[in-house]
């Protein structure tokens, strides 16, 4: 159509000729000639457009230094990375985190804490083993710290820097970064533990359908029946396993840049994924924290002492209580000694 298309055609032709020269060879193997150099064959714009259709759109050449990253001459995606970082990332973060806080706030204001309607029985039953509790708090503790230090990377500059000044902020951020890197290990361990420990109680089944149908008790009056974990908890579990796992994987990739993922595009994507998943996880966990603490009476002790009030259990997890009371059910998560614990 215009000059540009013509140029592009010329360029493609040049490429074809180059390839042809290389592959066809000449009648006499030692005596082939190359086509004359076309001065415009390497016009930046033309080459760029050409490369846009060929994959990453990065301009990659040859460098003599062994650092292959340096062979990328221009990667215009850096500008996109900048834009995504400045725009969507922050909006996703703000929307999900602030959104969740607002949601929880409204919920609390409207419904208040969910109470155990039948009152406490005064009899406790063992809901979690100590290793379960350990795994939870290992994950939870490291997650909270990771979230704070991670959020600092995105928002500290806007929220904290103006308050404490550049030197203090850098000192804090440097420590936060080191902490973030090291906390990745306990977090990963916690996620792995929880995955193993809670897996069998978190397989979705029919009861979860009902639970979801009743919106976890929001719709109608009765608590929908649940086994050890209700549908919502299972979502948190799987989100933790997948989201936490993804955070761990992307985190390690970022920790060893260009060693696991070697391309700049891959690194950019990893950084963006890590951020977005983290924001969503933070939002989810805010909800989880709410429900596990002030949002629901009697829930906190489950992960604190490992024991819960029988009535609470009957209301929220009736099927689980049934299973636990019925010793024939071997798949029950009833811990040995639960009876004894319940008896005092």
């Amino acid at each position, binding site marked *: 159509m215009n000059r540009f298309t013509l140029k592009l055609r010329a360029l493609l032709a040049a490429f074809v000729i180059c390839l042809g020269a290389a592959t066809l060879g000449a009648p006499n193997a030692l005596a082939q000639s190359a086509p004359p150099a076309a001065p415009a064959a390497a016009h930046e714009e033309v080459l760029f457009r050409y490369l846009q259709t060929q994959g990453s759109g990065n301009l990659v*050449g040859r*460098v003599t*230094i062994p650092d292959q990253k340096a062979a990328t*001459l221009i990667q215009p995606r850096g500008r996109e*990375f900048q834009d995504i970082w400045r725009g969507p990332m922050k909006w996703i973060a703000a929307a999900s985190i602030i959104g969740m806080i607002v949601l929880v706030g409204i919920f609390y204001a409207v419904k208040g804490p969910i109470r155990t309607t039948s009152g406490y029985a005064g009899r406790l039953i063992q809901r979690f083993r100590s290793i379960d509790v350990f795994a939870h708090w290992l994950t939870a503790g490291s997650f909270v710290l990771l979230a704070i230090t991670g959020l600092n990377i995105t928002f500290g500059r806007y929220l904290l820097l103006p308050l404490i000044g550049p030197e203090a902020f850098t000192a804090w951020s440097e420590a936060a970064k080191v902490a973030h890197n090291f906390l990745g290990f306990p977090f990963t361990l916690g996620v792995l533990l929880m995955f193993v420990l809670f897996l069998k109680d978190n397989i979705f089944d029919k009861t979860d359908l009902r639970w979801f149908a009743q919106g976890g008790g929001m719709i109608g009056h009765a608590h929908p029946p649940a086994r050890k974990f209700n549908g919502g908890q299972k979502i948190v579990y799987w989100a933790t396993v997948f989201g936490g796992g993804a955070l761990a994987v992307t985190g390690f990739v970022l920790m060893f840049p260009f060693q696991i993922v070697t391309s700049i595009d891959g690194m950019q994507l990893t950084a963006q994924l890590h951020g977005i998943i983290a924001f969503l996880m933070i939002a989810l966990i805010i909800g989880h924290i709410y429900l596990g603490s002030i949002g629901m009476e009697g829930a906190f002790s489950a992960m604190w002492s490992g024991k819960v009030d029988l009535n609470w259990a009957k209301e929220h997890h009736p099927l689980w209580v049934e299973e636990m009371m019925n010793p024939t059910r071997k798949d029950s998560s009833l811990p040995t000694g639960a009876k004894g614990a319940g008896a005092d």
Partner: protein
Amino acid sequence: MARMKFLCDADRCIECNACVTACKNEHEVPWGINRRRVVTINDGKPGERSISMACMHCTDAPCAAVCPVDCFYTTADGVVLHSKDLCIGCGYCFYACPFGAPQYPRLGNFGSRGKMDKCTYCAGGPEADNTPAEYAKYGSNRLAEGKLPACAEMCSTKALLAGDGDIIAQIYAERVSTRGYGSGAWGWRTAYKDMVAG
């Protein structure tokens, strides 16, 4: 005030790497840190071009936008500099930089990659001009002495131009009109959102 830019005339650049060693020499840049490099595209084929690349001192610099500690600043000359005192070596600027400019003393980010290092346009850093402290962190400050970056000053074929953006763009445009061809001011669109005739 001038708006300092780099422009590499790929039709002149012969990958002699003078810019690279001039930079090393001027700032005693250590092994493994490559503030400037020369990349050859279409290597060995007709249309081969070599382009010398370093920090382009972008307009609306992506590194500055993504820096978690806001350690970058742009001087009145349009030079994008950073403070090594503030840098935490997170590596984000490398992901954002379209030109692969940021360099780190260490490969991994575990613990720390060390303070980021990059081309300063031979303009030092936040410290007082041409003080030992400034030299130690950023190398010499030629701009403060009225000189231009060593890489461009020593370019064997005068392919690498440095100076006020308007003036070097004009030099380039004149060259293109004299010789009748030009393969473009590499990286200008990405760096300065701007094009030069050619």
